[in-house]
């Protein structure tokens, strides 16, 4: 999985790291100044959170299916729940259905407290 993550230029650009804890696969997005969207708050750009969620969903799917073929996103939606401050983020994905052709995945991203997510994503991928 680490090799796969390193092979994705955008994942390297974000500096995303892979962690495998007791709760399963987790991704970490280290904070840096150039991912800020609103400099006045400051808050991480909503698009970066969305991209981080989508990346987490994708990696979880590849990890689960053991399929070498990279799933293609059909659509991806993000609910923004709280503003994400200048801190690291963590995300974890759950596969709701792994069908023959389509997989439904839900993802959450949080900062200090996993029970207080800053955003939640839901996506469908073509396998």
């Amino acid at each position: 999985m680490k090799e796969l993550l390193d092979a994705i230029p955008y994942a390297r650009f974000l500096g995303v790291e892979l962690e495998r804890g007791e709760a399963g696969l987790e991704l970490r997005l280290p904070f840096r100044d150039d991912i800020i969207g609103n400099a006045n708050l400051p808050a991480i750009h909503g698009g970066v959170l969305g991209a981080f969620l989508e990346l987490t969903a994708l990696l979880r799917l590849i990890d689960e299916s053991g399929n070498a073929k990279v799933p293609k996103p059909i659509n991806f939606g993000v609910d923004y729940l709280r503003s994400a401050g200048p801190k690291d983020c963590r995300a974890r994905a759950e596969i709701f259905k792994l069908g023959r052709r389509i997989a439904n995945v839900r993802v959450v991203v949080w900062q200090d407290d996993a029970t207080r997510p800053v955003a939640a994503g839901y996506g469908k991928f073509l396998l």
Partner: protein
Amino acid sequence: MPEERNYALASIFGAGIENMLHHTPHALRLRMQVEKTGPGFAVVHLPFAAELVGDPGRGVVFGGVITTLLDQTAGLAVACAMKELRPIATVDLRVDYLRAAEPGKDLYAHVECTKLTRAVAFVRGSAWEGSEEDPFATCLGTFMIGANPVVRTGLKKLAEAEAEAERDRAREVES
């Protein structure tokens, strides 16, 4: 279009101005540029960069980067729909990936604010690399108005400075 005067950002409507995204560090990092704005809409350009690629085999930009471009454009479209500038925050954004984008191409997004109420703004948009008639992604989203106490002061200052410059030019013409 004299009614355009009623919009908070009317003075900067038209072709994009160099520093319209200067208040958003991440938009600057991705070298996004505003192409065009008008009443309730915005068009933003994202230059291709190898570091944004999601699928190295095909050389296509990662899907989430398209979300970033659409989110940025949508926020600007909402600001362009306001009579008086108020702080906004994305409530949700859903992107449909209609097809893969052409590898190595610059991307564009056009988002319209379809409805602005006191508390919520609704947006709809698309992204393309060749022609706007053939988008590779579409989006639907909502924004909360007055979500946080911080106004995008950068845009407001820019609009005020441009309105002032316009008044100066008008005075010069008169004298």
